[in-house]
């Protein structure tokens, strides 16, 4: 007897078969039912557009607010006057001539008497001293700076009593003094260069392009063809003719929604143009399956939740003012942390998917709205390896996937 025919006869024979149940079964069921039963079909939950815009604005506001708090003001920033001092230092003879110096002797001994310096100079030197000492240095300049720091500390209380001398009375700066300030300038410039390659933290959203919809008949497998004795019945060889044989009145529809990801990553510089980044990425995949056999409709919704760990290398291609163009490439391992399969509104058990590995590359453009905060977009391409699981999802049907990542990048340590 052929399979389909046998199935139909068995099903028809037992279609209205009933077995007795005990009289008290309903009481047992009713006792476990909640008092208030929801019998109305729940309305689809929709989030109004204004709520979404408000939430997005709030998020941006929080990020900008946080950044503003982290951004030191001019009054508190010791580096700010230093920047102007650096410019002035290029014109040493004019600018420095006006600095009051009490004794030439102290200069000759390569030691500065802070008491002889104006409050402006004292204030200007302090941060350089502090920052320079933070870094291990071995040259003579750093030793000199440490010495200055000590002496500055000693004379702080006297600063208010020091009156700047009139400009015309200032003695001319010695060449050794000029050399000293040049060295200081070089140190500052070097420090600033190093500081410009700072770590960043990114918060982003990403999605693939387009949903996938399939609507197809179901092919008879080779075993079923053999079982049906199809070739001799139809007088043709299905395998030789190459024409597929579909199951009658059976159709499958699948809709794979585009993947959506949210990530939080940290980026660490390893050279002036290269950096590595890693973090955590949440990805949500959802699919709808509809099987139609005769008039029998069977609907399933599957949602897969993944937590991924990316590892990327980023190469800075071009930089101009606040605009930054870069290329990035790397891989990601996504772990399926939760799976939800809902058939006709009821949740069913389902095994989790295996680890999903992927590699990808992207070209990114970042614009720094303020020095601490950049907005970036990364159009890219990703390839998802077949993880060998039976779970049908977007990645299985479209392993090569174009995506767009948009996010905010917080520049850590930016002055």
């Amino acid at each position, binding site marked *: 007897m052929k399979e389909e025919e046998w199935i139909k006869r068995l099903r028809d024979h037992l279609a209205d078969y009933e077995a007795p149940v005990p009289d008290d079964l309903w009481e047992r069921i009713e006792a476990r039912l909640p008092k208030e039963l929801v019998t109305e*079909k729940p309305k689809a939950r929709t989030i109004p557009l204004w709520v979404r815009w408000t939430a997005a604005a709030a998020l941006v506001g929080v990020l900008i607010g946080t950044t503003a708090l982290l951004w030191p003001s001019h009054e508190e920033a010791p580096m700010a006057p230093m920047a102007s001092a650096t410019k002035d230092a290029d014109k040493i003879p004019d600018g420095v001539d006006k600095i009051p110096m009490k004794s030439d002797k102290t200069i000759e001994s390569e030691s500065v008497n802070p008491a002889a310096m104006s409050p402006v100079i004292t204030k200007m030197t302090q941060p350089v001293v502090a920052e320079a000492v933070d870094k291990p240095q071995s040259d003579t300049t750093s030793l000199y700076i440490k010495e200055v720091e000590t002496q500055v500390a000693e004379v702080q209380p006297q600063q208010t009593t020091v009156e700047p001398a009139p400009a015309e009375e200032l003695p001319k700066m010695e060449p050794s003094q000029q050399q000293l300030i040049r060295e200081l300038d070089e140190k500052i410039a070097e420090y600033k260069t190093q500081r410009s390659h700072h770590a960043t933290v990114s918060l982003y959203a990403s999605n693939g392009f387009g949903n996938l919809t399939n609507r197809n008949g179901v092919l008879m497998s080779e075993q079923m063809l053999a079982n049906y004795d199809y070739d001799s019945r139809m007088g043709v060889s299905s395998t030789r003719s190459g024409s597929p044989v579909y199951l009658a009145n059976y159709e499958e529809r699948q809709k794979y929604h585009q993947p959506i990801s949210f990530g939080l990553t940290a980026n660490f510089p390893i050279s002036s143009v290269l950096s590595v980044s890693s973090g955590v990425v949440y990805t949500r995949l959802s699919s709808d399956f509809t099987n139609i056999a005769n*008039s029998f409709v*069977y609907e399933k919704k599957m949602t897969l939740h993944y937590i991924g760990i990316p590892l990327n290398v980023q190469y800075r291609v071009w930089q101009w003012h606040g605009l930054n163009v870069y290329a990035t490439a790397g891989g990601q391992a996504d772990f399926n942390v939760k799976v939800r399969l809902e058939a006709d509104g009821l949740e069913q058990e389902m095994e989790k998917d295996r680890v999903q590995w992927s590699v990808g590359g992207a070209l990114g453009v970042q614009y720094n709205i303020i020095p601490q905060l950049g907005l970036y977009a990364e159009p890219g391409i990703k390839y998802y390896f077949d993880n060998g699981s039976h779970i049908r999802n977007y990645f299985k049907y479209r392993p090569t996937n174009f995506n767009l990542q948009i996010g905010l990048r917080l520049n850590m340590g930016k002055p």
Partner: protein
Amino acid sequence: MQETERQLIEAIRAGDREALRRLYEHFSRYAMGVTLRYVPRRDDALDIVQDSFISILTSISTFEYRGEGSLRNWVTRIVSNQAVSWMKDHEQLSFSELTFDEIEDDEDSAIEEVPKELVNEMIGRLPVRYRVVVNLRTFEELSHKDVALKLGISEKAAITLFSRAKRKLAKMINEYLNSQGI
């Protein structure tokens, strides 16, 4: 005149709590028949029916009416899912160490000549792996591919298991018919 599925659902949606009982009375014996094909021990089957009706009645709001018979299909699927879940927890429902063999065409067996209760019982007596596959393929009308997906096995394994189950059931039916001199 018997209440239709549409009338029953409309009454439930209108807040008629008594309609929940009518739904139970309408389908409980049928649900017990379905369950016994998966789990032949009556006490276990009763637990499954009880849990199934709690699921049915607490999630009735998710049901979508698609014509007469759709409510019955929905009830069948919930009972079936509950039974498969119970089997996974309580029986040795393992699909490892499965060997594949050639599928042979079986002889015709006069299924209709065997009393319904007995055929139902015969399905319940099949080894656990055959039982679950024959139920999903025959009464849930799932394709081999969907049976495979549901049980986490290959399509080839689902086809092989179904073929063996069919052969074993046909043998049981033929033995009964022979014993009855039919």
